[in-house]
């Protein structure tokens, strides 16, 4: 059962208007058992092990157990995602191999929710029929480039 829920940690997202795991699963797998108020994966065979539910759960109640039909038991990969970084811990089946820990950034310079879609670069013309997209041609250039592109290229 690829993603699984630890009953003691899951509170059914009582504090939210909808459960986080059900909201996020791209394959509509996480559901809440209304009786127990605990979430579960309703079709583990369709799970991609994408960890979207794991990363979003406010109580760290979801983990992943490798697919039983080809993954030997005993290893684990856990994720802790904060607003700018993600921390991974990899535990090997063979406990004599030292667990690995990695921390990677996942966004830089822009606060969550603040990605500003327009006006990052000026747009060259206002003609709906021209090939110039929003932010072009200026946005085709970088400070690092050798050439400056002043119109959208053709061959």
């Amino acid at each position, binding site marked *: 059962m690829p993603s699984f829920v630890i009953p003691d940690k899951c509170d059914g997202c009582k504090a939210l208007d909808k459960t986080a795991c059900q909201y996020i699963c791209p394959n*509509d797998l996480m559901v809440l058992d209304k009786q127990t108020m605990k979430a579960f994966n309703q079709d583990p065979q369709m799970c991609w092990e994408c960890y979207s539910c794991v990363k979003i759960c406010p109580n760290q109640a979801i983990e992943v157990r490798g*697919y039983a039909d080809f993954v*030997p038991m005993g290893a684990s*990969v856990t994720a802790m995602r904060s607003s700018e970084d993600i921390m991974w811990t990899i535990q090997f*089946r063979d406990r004599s191999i030292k667990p690995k820990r990695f921390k990677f950034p996942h966004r830089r310079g822009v606060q969550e929710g603040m990605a*500003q879609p327009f006006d990052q670069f000026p747009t060259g013309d206002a003609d*709906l029929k021209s090939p110039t997209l929003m932010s072009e041609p200026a946005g085709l250039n970088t400070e690092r480039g050798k050439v400056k592109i002043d119109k959208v290229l053709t061959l």
Partner: protein
Amino acid sequence: MTQFETVTVETDLLICGGGMAACGAAVEASYWAKQHGLKVTLVDKAAMDRSGAVAMGLSAINQYVDLNSGNNTLKDYVDYVRNDLMGITREDLVVSIARHVDSTVHLFEKWGLPIWKDKDGNYVHEGRWQLMINGESYKVIVAEAAKNALKEAKGEYYERVFITHPLVDGDKCVGAIGFSVRENKVYIFKAKATLVAMGGAVHVFKPRSTGEGFGRSWYPPFNSGASAFFTIYGGAEMTCQEVRFIPVRFKDAYGPVGAWFLLFKAMATNAQGGNYMKDNAAELDKWEPYGKVKPAPANIRNWLMMLDVMDGKSPIYMQTADAIKKITDQAADEKEAKKKLKELESEAWEDFLDMTISQAILWAATNVEPDKKPSEIMACDPYFIGSHSGASGAWLSGPEDLQTSETKSEYFWGYPHMTTVSGMFAAGDASGASSHKFSSGSHAEGRIAAKAALSYIVDHPEPPKVDQAMIDGLLKEVLQPLETFEKHKGATTDPDINPNYIRPQQFMYRLQKIMDEYAGGVSSQFKTSDKLLEKGLELMAFLKTDKEHLAAENLHELMRAWENVHRMYQAEAHMRSILFREETRWPGYYFRADKPTMDNTNWLAFCNCVYHKDTGEWDMIKRPVKYITK
């Protein structure tokens, strides 16, 4: 029967899907819609933050042409794509995307995506066209910009609404129909133009793992052929439906190999240590001129590997330890070597953790330390992903300014990236013959198509004509599986075994068995023939009529029912196109045993098809390949 509320949404531009292409479309459309007072609506079956192929994240941006550096030209990119697809490519579309993709990538960076930089501040390339990123939140960031754009332009988005069918008025697309997977609501979207961006398809073929790991296909199980169905059923001409993609990846968990091959320069060998790319090089003559270009086309690399597999020389290994040793050997002293090893280790694991976490679990569970021993690689199963190294999708008009006097009459009919159905546009995996756009190019194509769609709307401001009888018919058809289940569920003691209906899961298994055994799936090492395909189509005809007996217990299962109907149309278009193309051109993707060689004289051509929903007939059409580069 449960009552369903019908919600009617009227809009100018409807974007179907919420993935990379759709998010690009939402940003671009919102920018222009704001200026022209138009409304944009986006519909996704999942939550945009984590929907589609980039749900988990990615570790690289695979298309960056870097035009501004002066190192590459548009023609360089076209040469690469054309050769990889064995000559079958729409150069005008490839250029159309390539000339915009850099600006898309620069926007990603402005939105907060961490792109690796070297000490001089230049992007770190994985290969010539690929950039390394810390991409765990790639999709979250791209979706955030799209949502903010929609908000600024007073547009709207619907999540958890599953699109089933297009709405068509004569030869024009006037919107779409779908249902909520959360509440009893059916949605009628009436639109002046519609942009299809619902990804590609997996689980059309039987995957290698059929137990719990069934869902661990390389391609995400949630992209189920909705784009293909939408365009096929809407009457759009389709192209390259035979050009499936079979990636070679680490075995079983399908972790990426790109960083190993490109960044770490690792070699793959057979079990005896033989280099199949060298040992089987004589085979390349058969696939000239494409067989001889560098880098060798993806399908040819598969093929040379598969020759060894069929010769009993597997397992095939990625020689990770050798690659790491070679890199650390270059270090000046032991201390630096250790530091380098640590760096490589972190890069290698991040490559998995950013986009195929299962592979990290599998390595940990089998005690793999890549610097100590090699790891097995393997060809996955067949997928439909027009944005990657496959090419299946809708046949689109190219931009006018990229046509030559020879191509214009064939490849241009008014609006860039519009299908042959008026007002229906397509991008990303939904559009064909423009491979190697990947995440960034799909976003760029969404932007191009969205701007074109708005210019179409300005030229065609009349409100969409939607026939009520058509809607009534579709509403009944869409909800039928729920009714079928209710009506018959009491007939047996086991709801799964009932002579009156078939549940979506078994329907999918039946489809997969047909495709696997007759259309060159995993179990036949991707080999098929005219006779096998004809038999497969015969069995498919039964499945098509049994579609009327699909049963669904709840909304989730109703979605599964329609996903599998969508897959079935992708499957049929695929079989018919393989049959139509009387040669073998991509031996590593599929092999037609009765036509084992490439025939450039007769088949350097596109195999297109059009479905007529009123008669159920398919027209197969051969269209010329015309290049715009010299």
